[in-house]
């Protein structure tokens, strides 16, 4: 057992001396704490989003339940838990009940690989402030985001109703499309760092506020691609076609009520927190930051970064109009994926030598130009003049 754990998590200081009872206790405590943090942060984030989006719209937002309205999401959650759990007659009962869980679990799994701080030593046991640090690290996040598609897809399918089905088909098509760009930009970061370990990715960005962070590497392109792709992956605005009310009457979770509905919301907002944490880990140095009064305050910096990222997500929601479906697909397949692919090639080449890098750059440029031409020809052939990025709408 001991050797299996040590082999599973090589380099984790917790298993360096073997796994006795206290190691298991520490693991259990970390598990509970991570779960609790994520659950509480969902309550917080829902209110945070509502407050911020209200202020961006010259309003106050909810301010009745609890101090300044901060207990509103708790009240909403309690209300949902006391609602009747309806199962539609046409629904596939087992899958219908399973879908919200399938949507929720991967999000919580993803948060396990996020390093929240450095290391902590309690009574001779040194542990990372991170639930698990497997050597395949960041792949967990890609795996989880793939699985969470099933939650949405199964929910729509099992509801036995057409609007949720259309919504879930949209959602899965969107998530699968952006998965590629997401994976490619993660691969770029992995190439830059040379490790899949999330703790190693953080360690590589350590030392020098902002200066060493991945956000500046690759001219910020991996960061931009990852941020756009993860926004689409979460089906957050402006990519929230999944819940386009005027077209789908609510989307994939329309037939859900009570706890199951609450679980979808839990999954959605837990994903927002987790993915903000992932962005902070991959591109903003995670818990990296100057010491305060001689103390290493990684978790504080980490929380601050996540809060800023959350603000930006809400800011984008308040600013950008929802994309049309063809614009969404155009952005994903014709811009982000080729762009991320070219970036990956250039970074891979540059890792070998600058000559390879230049060659890859030239090759990518030619490929991208050819692609742009192909898209243009394709549009002219189909007689479709519209489409593309929202900014193209203004062109005559």
């Amino acid at each position, binding site marked *: 057992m001991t050797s299996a754990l040590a082999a599973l998590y090589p380099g984790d200081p917790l298993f360096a001396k073997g796994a006795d009872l206290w190691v298991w206790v520490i693991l259990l405590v970390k598990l509970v704490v991570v779960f609790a943090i994520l659950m509480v942060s969902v309550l917080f984030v829902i209110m945070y989003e509502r407050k911020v989006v209200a202020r961006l719209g010259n309003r*106050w937002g909810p301010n009745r339940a609890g101090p300044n309205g901060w207990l509103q999401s708790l009240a909403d959650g309690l209300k949902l838990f006391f609602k009747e759990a309806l199962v539609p007659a046409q629904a596939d009962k087992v899958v219908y009940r399973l879908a919200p869980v399938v949507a929720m679990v991967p999000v919580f799994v993803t948060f396990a690989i996020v390093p929240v701080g450095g290391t902590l030593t309690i009574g001779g046991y040194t542990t990372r402030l991170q639930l698990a640090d497997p050597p395949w690290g960041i792949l967990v996040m890609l795996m989880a985001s793939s699985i969470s598609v099933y939650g949405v897809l199964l929910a729509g399918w099992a509801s036995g109703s057409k609007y949720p089905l259309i919504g879930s088909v949209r959602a899965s098509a969107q998530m699968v499309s952006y998965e590629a760009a997401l994976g490619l930009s993660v691969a770029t970061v992995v190439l830059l760092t040379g490790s899949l370990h999330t703790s190693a990715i953080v360690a590589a960005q350590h030392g020098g506020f902002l200066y060493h962070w991945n956000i500046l590497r690759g001219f910020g392109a991996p960061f931009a691609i990852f941020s756009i792709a993860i926004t689409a992956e979460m089906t957050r605005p402006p990519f929230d076609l999944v819940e386009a009310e005027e077209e789908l009457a609510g989307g994939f979770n329309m037939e859900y009520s009570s706890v199951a509905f609450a679980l979808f919301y839990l999954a959605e907002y837990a994903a927002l927190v987790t993915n903000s944490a992932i962005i902070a880990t991959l591109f903003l140095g995670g818990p990296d930051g100057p010491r305060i009064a001689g103390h290493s305050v990684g978790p504080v910096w980490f929380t601050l970064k996540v809060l800023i990222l959350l603000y930006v997500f809400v800011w984008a929601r308040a*600013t950008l109009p929802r994309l049309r479906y063809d614009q969404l697909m155009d952005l994903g397949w014709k811009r982000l994926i080729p762009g991320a692919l070219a970036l990956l090639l250039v970074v891979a080449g540059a890792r070998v030598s600058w000559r390879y890098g230049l060659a890859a750059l030239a090759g990518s440029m030619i490929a991208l130009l050819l692609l742009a031409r192909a898209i243009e020809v394709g549009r002219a052939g189909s007689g479709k003049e519209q489409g593309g990025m929202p*900014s193209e709408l203004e062109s005559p």
Partner: protein
Amino acid sequence: MSILDNRFVSFFKGFVVTGKQPLKPKVTTQYPEEKRPKPERFHGRHVLNRYEDGLEKCIGCELCAGVCPAHCIYVRGADNPPDSPVSPGERYGFVYEINFLRCIHCDLCVEASPTEAITESKLFEFSFTNRQDAIYTKAELLVDDEGKPRQLPWEDWRPGDDRNTSAWARATSPAGRADLEGTPLWSAELGYGLRPAQAGQSDEQAADVPADFDISVREVEAGEVAGVGVRATRPVRRPS
């Protein structure tokens, strides 16, 4: 063409626009505590008025019930007792009921009433919990012995609100004649006396000045009424 017209740059201009908003004042009215001043001729819940000597203005003619398009008013008249008359006329409103689940607040009853017996206040919040409570009887509608409207448990009367119980009646020209505009041809009320006329509708200048009787709005604007959570702003009317 400046750099700001670039497609890529203009994409971020939207973020600047929304990003500035948190610094601007909020438009939210904190409603239950804070209420915006209501328009001068707002139609709210009804009030049955009395003369200065305490007699009821209602003569039980049922014109209000007849004109009501929603059939929400039920009136039964009765002969006045000779030794203790309820109203100055021959008859009085023996039963007077308004079903507020039906009332559309059109104020036709107010215009129909020959004695200005029924007028509308500016109170618009009805939060009864059963259908029986929705039917207001004389016990609720008739003003009390000091001329004040009765306060029902679910009603939110603010200081100054009781002085605005008959705005619409006095906003129109008496008898529908334009040359009588601004002339108070209505009877005095218990507790308030003869209320002045609202500034004439044809007077373009006066239209921008709050009418004399619209006291609560003006006092709130001047901060004279303490404890009223009304924001000190009122809609500005632009001369056409």
